[in-house]
């Protein structure tokens, strides 16, 4: 049986995790794949990532104003802040407001 091949020039659609990584990279975050995969395993989706980002955008802007670090460290710090926001957001429906 012949293997099916994609026609030359076509590209496979990125899976959801890759889409989240692309989205965060566009927002100048330096993504730690291991940490992101943990959150993804806990139920983080692209739409949730977008919601969390939009909801906390002013906070990330404040972060950027404060940070005086090389782009790599600034991007990683933004990603850390975003991950904490995701945890906070995902915790709410389970445990209720603290």
């Amino acid at each position, binding site marked *: 049986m012949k293997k099916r091949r994609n026609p030359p020039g076509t590209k496979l659609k990125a899976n959801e995790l890759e889409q989240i990584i692309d989205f965060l990279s566009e927002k100048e975050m330096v993504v730690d794949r291991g940490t992101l995969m943990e959150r993804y395993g806990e139920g983080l989706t692209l739409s949730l990532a977008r919601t969390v980002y939009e909801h906390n955008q002013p906070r990330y802007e404040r972060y950027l104003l404060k*940070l*005086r*670090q090389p782009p790599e*460290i600034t991007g990683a710090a933004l990603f850390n802040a975003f991950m904490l926001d995701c945890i906070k957001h995902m915790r709410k429906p389970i445990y209720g407001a603290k």
Partner: protein
Amino acid sequence: MKRKECFINDKRRRSYLASVYTRITRGKSVLVEGGYGAGKTRFLSLIQPKKLRGVWVESLFNVHETLASILKELNYEAGTSYQRTPGYLKMICALDDYFIIIDEANDLDPRLWPYLKRIIDAGVPIVFAGLPKVRTYLASEHPDILSRLKTLVLYPIEVEDFILEYKDFEPEAVEQIYAATKGDMRKFEEIVTDCRERARELKYVFVDVNLVLSFLAEQPGI
């Protein structure tokens, strides 16, 4: 140690502490479960009921050393003799107004569990603390013991509680340490101490996020 010393104002932990007091007052036992650095040992140190005396037991001891050490803590003369084990067990079961605390329960000698079951059944409360594998082990090897315990799962303290606690740190600085240490409270506190020292050296009154990020960048493999 005062009850509220070093105790971050976390609702779940306060509720767990109340639950432990209720259980041990009724002569029932508890298993406090949590991953590395979740704060199990610190939580145990907060358990100080007014009417019961706490007896800490070293989980690395073998059976006769463990039983003897309980009696010694209760001011009895007890030599660590293998032959006296049955007598010691009877004494421990007959005594009251105390409870036993066993930290690092994952290190306990498997031969000790049946003895601990007798002690629990005699109405002496035991508070165990250990990694999640304690519950896994008990579920497979001693489900009868597990059914006698109330399991309290200790999650790492949430970042918002740390922000409230560490007032000499910028909130963003606390967030970055929390994220870097992935909720391991032991590592978190080490970095907090190091950053405070760095701030003192630089004559900063406040630990800001840039100082923390520069410090974290120098620490490979946190």
